[in-house]
């Protein structure tokens, strides 16, 4: 596969390491009353769609950027690639 890196352009997916569902960015609040449940859902449960999937790839053999790739799990077509750091900020994550 070829991932169109937002900074570097098309790169072979062999340079990347796959992590999984981009929801892993949204780490829950550790002080919430039901933190164990929310962390369980966060870490263990997946939508796992047959179709568009937002997922985390790490450019380990490249620039070490974590990317959020929107890819169709049936056709493998990639429709969007973003820097995970930007996505994290857009979801309100900061310090």
């Amino acid at each position, binding site marked *: *596969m*070829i991932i169109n890196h937002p900074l570097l352009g098309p790169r*072979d997916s062999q340079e990347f*390491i796959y*992590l999984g569902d981009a929801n*892993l*960015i949204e*780490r829950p609040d*550790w*002080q919430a009353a039901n*933190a*164990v449940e929310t*962390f*369980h859902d966060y*870490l263990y449960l997946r939508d796992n769609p047959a179709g568009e999937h937002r997922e*985390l790839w*790490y450019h*380990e053999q490249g620039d*070490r*950027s*974590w990317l959020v790739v929107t890819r169709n799990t049936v*056709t*493998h*077509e*990639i429709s969007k690639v973003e*820097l*995970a*750091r930007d996505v*994290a*900020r857009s979801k309100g*994550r*900061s*310090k």
Partner: protein
Amino acid sequence: MNQMNRINGQPLGGTEATGAPRSGQANRLSGGQIDHAKTLNFRFDGKTFQGHPGDTLASALLANGVRLMGRSFKYHRPRGPLTSGSEEPNALVELRSGARQEPNTRATVAELFDGLEAMSQNRWPSLSFDALAINDRLSTFLTAGFYYKTFMWPKAFWEKLYEPIIRRAAGLGSLSMETDPDLYDKGFLHADLLIVGSGPAGLAAALTAGRAGAQVILAEEDFLFGGRLIAETYRLGSGSGADWAAAAIAELAAMPNVRLMPRTTVIGAFDHGITGAVERVSDHLAVPAAGKPRQILWRIYAKRTLLCAGAIERPIPFENNDRPGILLAGAIRAYANRWAATPGKTVAIFTNNDDGLRTATDLIDKGVSVAAVIDTRPEGKTLAGTTHLKGATVIDSAGRLGLTGITVRLGTGETRQIACTALGVSGGWNPNVHLTCHQRGRPVWDAKIAAFVPGADLPPSMSVAGAATGDLTTSGALASGAAGAVAALDALGITARAAELPEAEDAPVNVTPFWYVKHGKGRAWIDQQNDVTVKDVKLAHQEGYRSVEHLKRYTTLGMATDQGKTSNMAGLAVMAELTSKSIPATGTTIFRPPYTPVPIATFAGRSAGKDFRPVRQTPSHKWAAEQGAVFVEVGMWKRAQWFPRQGETHWRQSVDREVLATRNSVGICDVTTLGKIDVQGTDAAEFLNRVYANPFAKLAVGKVRYGLMLREDGMAMDDGTTARLAEDHFVTTTTTANAVGVYRHMEFCRQCLWPDLDVQIISTTEAWAQFSVAGPNARKLLQKIVDPGHDISNEAFPYMGCGEITVCGGLRARLFRISFSGELAYEIAVPTRYGDGLIRAMVEAGKQYDSVVYGTEALGVMRIEKGHAAGNELNGTTTARNLGMAGMVSKKKDAIGSTLSEREGLNRDDVLALVGFRPVDRSRPLVAGSHFINVGAEATAANDQGYMTSVAFSPNLGHSVGLGFLKSGGARKGETLRAVNPLNNEEVEVEVVSAHFIDPEGDRLRA
């Protein structure tokens, strides 16, 4: 014009005529794309023959009058070539000998070279007499799937009797069982347009794209370019197809933007326009040139791919349609026109289309006698110069090891015997849709040519031209090739003008579907290699295996080395008839990569044997090698395991010496392989505070702290020490095994979880050579290395201190007062290039203390004596609590893994806890991987109390010591248990003790 002398860069092979008699080549004709002036000697089944450059093994054997080349898989039927290409199911041989022996090589694509050796296969004792041909007599018992219904009794007989017999009978060729001596390589190519196939469509496309200046790769699986153009006699413009092809190739070869790749098979279309291709660099040579690979696996990144793979002719099954001498009509034509060879002096043709008639015409022109043309079509033009039987079919054939004649049923119903030594069969042509299916695309039915053509769901960026689209005329192929290139480049914003094209034939093939000859009780072969007959398909239908997938799997139709290229259609047609459905309604079988079989070694390339993965060497590697160190693999690293000295005959002697010398004086160990990560930034402390379970915010500058890193699920991920060199600067270490994973994890935390923390990280593992100096005399030794300006006394540089210093007269270095061994110890780091110099200097400085350099074994012994957890304990299923570090998991802050480590299942009273063990009988050794069973309890899983993770012989204590996880371990000190090891039928009584066997209070560390 002879292309053999035209292809740029292609070795001709061959030797000057040896004066060997040509008379052997009884079926050799004149002309063609072979170099008659040169003779090549080769051997088949021990007999010597002659051929010419440009021959394949099959064409040369046919020219020599040899039709019998192999045996079928199941019935061991005598077989000759069916085709002239890579779709060949029958003529498989063992090519070459010794370690280069190559099973199942298709004689039809094996390029002849001088000294070629080939043996027939899957026969015993000989090709002409094969004992297992008895299977053919028993065929009525060996129908499709018979083995699913028997061989079940008695139970034990399957492995002992039935299966060994089946296995010996099955299989085709054999491996030499020796290591392949050849080199293989891999590579990566980039282009605007990849053109697959160099027939009329491919060449027209290449000329169009090449002249437009696009970056073009033209891949041709054959060793000659031109496809059917060099196998046909019809004119292109003023000259022959071969002439036009040669001229086109000459023009393309002169274009710097065009890469011609003969002997290159495109094997698969993968995601996002990436294709795989195999270039056979040296298969046409006796032995590859020095340093040159046998084959190269190319990964081609082309913006567009144009598939010009042509079409594959299909046979018409009839009773005994598999005898040597029965070929596809187009193949006979190719052998005659391109290879100047004929499978027989008297040939008959059996066709349902006009293309079959061409073969007759060409043979007649070449002076080969055509006994008759049997044409299933009652109407249509009559061919001159031979007997043209309309509305007739071939219903049987004769000849045990080769065709001697056929039985024909005329339109009138009467039958006629016709003597012939070869029969050309044409059932029409199937567009070669193989690559269009590699991303699960499904071909669609085209009634006009009664065949499947590429569907709409092609791999993205792929388009198709020429016969592969179903347009079987040469003029159509030329035009669609040119148009295909223009369209493909247009999609890339490159304007191209279609190459002007020569006049070419545009005769329709006029195929009228005729799938198999129904007459007769005997067997009509559909899949010739796997011996699947019309009867087998009927039986599958009768037993309910009616979907294409069930049909294939039950009968093995299309599962042979040709993957059904010549057989799937007939199988489908028969099933369609039985289910009275149309062929498309019955289904289509899609193709999977690779297009043709690829040697496993080719996929591995250079990454084989000792080059499987790179080797990482430590800074002291050269010195250690000089000392005769024994090295051990630690991931990709090679580390010194121990350093044998004169007179030491057993590794234990060396390791015990290294341990004792370290504990009693001083030892040096290269610990560079531990991961080092430089962590900087105003938020660096806060960052570490979150990635480690224990607090880091308040670590003072100039101090080191042990850190335990958890995964989010609460399991221990890694541990190490972190030194604070400045307010905003830390150096953290990881275990050797987890260095990469921890770095990746930190980047995830930094970029995805806390994107605004001011923290920057970079690996410095390789930048610094780091050595542990441990033992009572460690300080004394180091004081001779560290420059006088730096006070490393216990007061000035206490346990867990760190600092930047200089050594050996001004070299910048780092010093850490940390200890893995439990001794007074330091780790000292210098820039890697000086690591070799430093260890030599330290060894010199250590002489007066009888210092040693110790390896990973001694390191392991000392960490076990000290009770430090390592890889065997951090196995991905152990929590801080299991490791006895529950107290380190701060509840006052958010850290990765802290929340989920609170789950009930991880905190039950009886969870495993890390403790120490020693044998009750001190002379007994402990064994890692033993399980703990209470004394008196039965050794069963139900009574399993835990397991031993690490053991060592402690030369200090004089007995074996072990670490392990024990249920409620913390509360069981002093208890006696059995460490059972049923694998070796042994067990040892052990005493549960503290994991800290040496200096539990840590006085030595702080000395």
